[in-house]
């Protein structure tokens, strides 16, 4: 009974946060590029992760389907980092909400795959995401042409810097998994 109340409270919190980020705070997030790309997008992904933690029974066991889901997650991350997509999310709030739902689902399905996926993919996936985030960050940092008309060149460069930092953090995360799993394998031997 206690667990059920706890889960319900967590579900309600996720729902409220999703609503607040997507509606009352949407204008604030959409005001600058760093807020939109470095705060709002990861916030929705994190809410998806929290949702997956709540629904522990939803798991994808088959490796082939796990990889397929991770490809979809990767594609959605690429899609919402494209300048055209970013501009359209600012012009059309409904399109921004499509991004929110997609990111929520991406976070959710990443965890449902993560629980059962093999070690090699656990390394490859964050490595690929880190490489993509780093490449995007470097591009935004070095481009002297405004890519998203909704924002300024300064904001574009600032976002680039934050993405480079996030990329490095993801690499560290990947290395942590690698050495932890290698240590575990050695112990088992």
């Amino acid at each position, binding site marked *: 009974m206690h667990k059920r109340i706890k889960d319900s409270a967590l579900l309600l919190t996720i729902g409220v946060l999703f609503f607040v980020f997507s509606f009352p705070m949407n204008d604030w997030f959409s005001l600058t590029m760093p807020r939109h790309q470095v705060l709002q997008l990861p916030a929705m992904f994190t809410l998806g992760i929290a949702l997956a933690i709540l629904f522990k029974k939803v798991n994808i066991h088959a490796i082939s389907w796990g990889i397929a889901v991770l490809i979809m997650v990767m594609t959605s991350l690429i*899609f919402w980092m494209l300048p055209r997509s970013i501009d359209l999310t600012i*012009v059309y709030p409904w399109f921004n909400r499509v991004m929110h739902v997609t990111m929520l689902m991406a976070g959710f399905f990443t965890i449902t795959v993560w629980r059962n996926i093999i070690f090699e993919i656990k390394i490859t996936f964050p490595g690929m995401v880190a490489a993509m985030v780093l490449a995007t960050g470097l591009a935004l940092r070095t481009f002297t*042409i405004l890519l998203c*008309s909704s924002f300024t060149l300064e904001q574009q460069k600032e976002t680039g810097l934050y993405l480079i930092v996030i990329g490095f953090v993801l690499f560290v995360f990947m290395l942590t998994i690698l050495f932890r799993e290698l240590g575990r394998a050695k112990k088992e031997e």
Partner: protein
Amino acid sequence: MKKILPPLLVLAVCVAILWKWTYGFSAFTVFSYTLREAGAIPRIFPDAALIDQDSSVFHIKDKQKYVLVNFVYLNCPYVCHKVNNRLEEIDKAISPEIIPSQLELVTVSFDVGNDNIRKIKNYRNRFGSDIHGWSFALPHQTSQSEFDTFLLRAGIWAKAAPGGSIINHSIYLFLVSPENKIVKIFDPAREDDASIIEKIRSCIKG
């Protein structure tokens, strides 16, 4: 073998979505996508009635000479004025050799709600009296939706950002031939004045 099918199928679908969304991985911004979607050049420049700073109504197609067309709005905080300052330099560099006998410049405001003839006249006066063959214009007797369609057909992205004061827009310069065909499109963010002038000259020389 069966196991590889789901990831392969999903990968194919995902690549197809990204392919479609970026016009075959060639247009990643709203500006380049709108331009690509309007069609390859040379293509007909869409027709719209325009009214200049002296209240004369005209059509680009009736000019019967080369016309360098760009689109701005007067409340633009930065980029439109920067592009027009570049156009001023281009105008001075090739005038009176080509301008106005073979080439005219037309700057069109797409902010139908805010800009008017008095404003564009005052704005033009800021560039001094020695800008020959350079008209500033507004759409004439055209609704906003009709003009938006015209802009999309030309390949220009212009949408008001939430809040209304800022309009996100493309800054391309269109070189329209005497046959009313867009023969060159310049991106002032990527090309310097010398390169634009050289290309205009070579087009006019044929």
